[in-house]
């Protein structure tokens, strides 16, 4: 285990199935997201990318199967014996979805401070986050006065503030220009270098080379 790594937590998914509205979206999904690795999540609309990410984030229930975090090379600890915040899925991961998670009447600075308090002890990371997403030009504006791309960058700044090892990102490049997308790619790579892992649903807008997890929609003929 390298000394320079901040994180060494991975995610092991076995036989995971999720259903929505009484319909099975996918089943027997098995893969490992290793510490320091990025996996791209690809597939057409409606294939279940969001469902998979939210299930992994602990925001939606799994129908079957398991998704467990593991400590790379470390001893296996019982979850209830670990100090809080506990390193199980929800505490170890951060999810950023289609919605930016920002309030129109709050300024960028207020958001960063709120997230620093919410994620407990991330106050020192506000500066780093603002730098990583180049928030300085608009950080004192209300979010309602920002452009869609600026709001998105502000929303994603909480990834850095949270200090969580596993990032679960759902179309993070939506509304972003090429410069911002390149910035995000660089940030993800830096996160990987620190031992952090990322699972990113994307439509090829993210300039990053990584193995892909593919969700294939079944052809209609096959669903019957």
């Amino acid at each position: 285990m390298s000394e320079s790594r901040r994180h060494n937590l991975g995610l092991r998914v076995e036989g995971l199935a999720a259903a929505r509205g009484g319909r099975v979206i996918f089943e027997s999904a098995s893969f490992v997201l290793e510490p320091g690795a990025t996996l791209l999540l690809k597939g057409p609309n409606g294939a279940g990318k969001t469902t998979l990410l939210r299930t992994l984030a602990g925001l939606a229930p799994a129908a079957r199967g398991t998704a467990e975090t593991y400590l790379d090379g470390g001893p296996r600890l019982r979850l209830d014996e670990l100090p809080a915040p506990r390193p199980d899925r929800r505490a170890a991961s951060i999810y950023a979805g289609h919605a930016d998670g920002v309030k129109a009447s709050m300024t960028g600075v207020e958001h960063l401070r709120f997230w620093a308090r919410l994620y407990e002890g991330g106050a020192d990371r506000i500066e780093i986050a603002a730098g990583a997403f180049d928030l300085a030009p608009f950080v004192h504006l209300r979010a309602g006065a920002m452009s869609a791309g600026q709001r998105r960058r502000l929303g994603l700044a909480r990834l850095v503030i949270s200090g969580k090892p596993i990032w679960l990102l759902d179309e993070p490049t939506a509304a972003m220009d090429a410069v911002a997308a390149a910035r995000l790619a660089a940030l993800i790579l830096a996160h990987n270098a620190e031992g952090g892992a990322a699972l990113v649903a994307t439509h090829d807008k993210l300039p990053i080379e990584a193995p892909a997890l593919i969700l294939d929609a079944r052809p209609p003929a096959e669903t019957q």
Partner: protein
Amino acid sequence: MTRKQQRTALIGAVFTVAALAVGLTLTALGRSVAYFYSPSDLAALAAPPSGTIRLGGLVEPGSILYTDDKAEVRFVVRDEIASTPVVYAGILPDLFSEGEGVVVEGRFGPDGRLRAAQVLAKHDENYMPREVAEALKKQGRWKEGERVGE
């Protein structure tokens, strides 16, 4: 704190709040009086209450007096200790009679009489055919109004 300790603390907090709620309820019940006034409740007050109140009790036998034009009826509602005079202009329910339970809603007039806006008869939980009631009366086992107005 580990998660286990947090959970224990949380469960402790839940039980404390629940115990507090139960404690408040029991204290309140120990002090509570029925929520409509009985004649003795009213007698205990320094001055008759100003707003609309409800009064519950038995119609005192022999107290029902109609005015000459039958437009108004006066009667006295009483319990074991005190009595309250009532005046009412309106149609009385079928079950209204001497010795029976009533609930009167109204406000006190300047003469100290409760001016009823509504008179409701309260009937008891005894159901029996007429013959049975008469037989009971004959045998001296009749308990007139005993449970009424409790």
